[in-house]
């Protein structure tokens, strides 16, 4: 059905009316077929199953701890003790005090280790992060171009491997004192990335995808008179530092989709989407987005 005069684009009001009618129809269509009570029962019983498994997880953790302690006492040689899995989640005072709007969502109180497989019909749901992360399903790919200084290539590879392993602590260990992950400041990238992952954003997947793209030209860092010149900074994607070309756009759109990429450029064509920077000496300087 067309509601405008043929041959000219509909006016703003016409599009508004058309969207309003279509929105109402879609809402009605979904609402008519939804069995809300059944869905609610599913949700409540799923959560109840998770709660029932918590004591088992705690007991398992305590048992494991006892076994390790016994090994320490009886072992004739030094034993390397790996940290025990955290079965109970972080203490309350480490939970970020978040709230809407714009705050991230709370961490999962019950980790996946204590969840019986049959109790997780949506286990493969990509949005259900748990101890997993968005990069877990990606493959490691070689950088599109060589020519990086060794120090940069080493840290690039280490970042990719840590992200693919969902090793938040390992990632944070690769950052430097100069590292920036948010324009709001902050010194806890782990919490920041975890919160983003739990809110359905995909910082680790995006990080891996960015570092698989061609790198921009190394940018010289301006220094004052008499100071030793710093090594250049290598940045991904190259659209951040180099004049944007159709090829730059195409490689971003193929990775992230045209819709997302359209949000990452100013009307003047400046890139301000997610980007990574590593200094020529191997110092990881930033992984930020926005302006």
């Amino acid at each position, binding site marked *: 059905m067309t509601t405008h005069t*043929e041959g000219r684009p509909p006016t*703003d009001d016409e599009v508004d009316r058309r969207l309003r009618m279509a929105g109402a129809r879609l809402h009605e269509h979904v609402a008519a077929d*939804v069995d*809300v009570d059944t869905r609610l029962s599913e949700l409540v019983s799923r959560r109840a199953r998770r709660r029932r498994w918590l004591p088992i997880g705690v007991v398992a953790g305590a048992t494991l701890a006892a076994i390790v302690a016994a090994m320490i006492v009886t072992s004739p040689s030094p034993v390397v003790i790996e940290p025990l899995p955290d079965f109970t989640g972080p203490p309350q005072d480490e939970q970020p005090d978040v709230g809407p709007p*714009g705050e991230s969502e709370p961490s999962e109180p019950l980790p996946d280790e204590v969840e019986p497989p049959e109790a997780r019909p949506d286990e493969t749901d990509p949005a259900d992060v748990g101890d997993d992360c968005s990069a877990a399903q990606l493959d490691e790919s070689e950088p599109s171009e060589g020519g990086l200084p060794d120090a940069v290539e080493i840290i690039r590879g280490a970042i990719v491997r840590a992200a693919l392993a969902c090793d938040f602590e390992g990632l944070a260990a690769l950052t430097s004192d100069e590292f920036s992950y948010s324009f709001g400041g902050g010194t806890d990238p782990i919490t920041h990335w975890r919160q983003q992952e739990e*809110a359905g954003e995909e910082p680790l997947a995006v990080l891996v995808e960015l570092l698989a793209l061609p790198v921009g030209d190394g940018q010289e860092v301006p220094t004052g008179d008499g100071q030793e010149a710093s090594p250049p900074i290598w940045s991904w994607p190259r659209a951040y530092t180099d004049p944007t070309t159709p090829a730059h756009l195409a490689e971003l759109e193929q990775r992230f*989709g045209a819709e997302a990429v359209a949000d990452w450029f100013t009307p003047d064509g400046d890139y301000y989407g997610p980007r990574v920077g590593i200094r020529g000496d191997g110092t990881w300087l930033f992984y930020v987005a926005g302006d």
Partner: protein
Amino acid sequence: MPPLEVTGAEVSSFNAFYRAEFASIAAVAAALCGDRASGEDIAQEALSRAYRDWQRISAYERPGAWVRRVAINLATSRHRRALTEARSRWRLTESQVVDPVLPDAALPDAALWRAVRTLPRRQRQAVALTYVDDLALEDVAAAMDCSVGAVKTHLHRARQTLANRLASRDGEDSR
């Protein structure tokens, strides 16, 4: 650690919230995914995350905005994953990347919502929250974590783009 037990009063409060919000959130997510079943799954997941910390979430001024923000992020995440899968297929077949969204032909106005899904992310979120959820601008802004002015800008640009796309599509249909 976060509270694990939900009191009787909180259960009642959550149940009322769930019944009031589920269909709206599912419809918004369906518009963003192009698929009603995915929309329902996303609504369920977003509300599940609210349930597990309901004592805190319910104290917010706009718990509905919190859940919607989680839902639209989940919808974006699902879209991104579909793109990744489409890219993998493309690598295998060396053919053109197909539309990663498999539109549900049973959705009313499927072609219009397909056009909406080609908009930039923030624009399509603003459209879905405004026109499917019928939220006030202030509530859309709260769900999107931006200003009312930014929502207006997103909506204006979205309507401009849609006007041109609908004109060309309607022109093709009439030929």
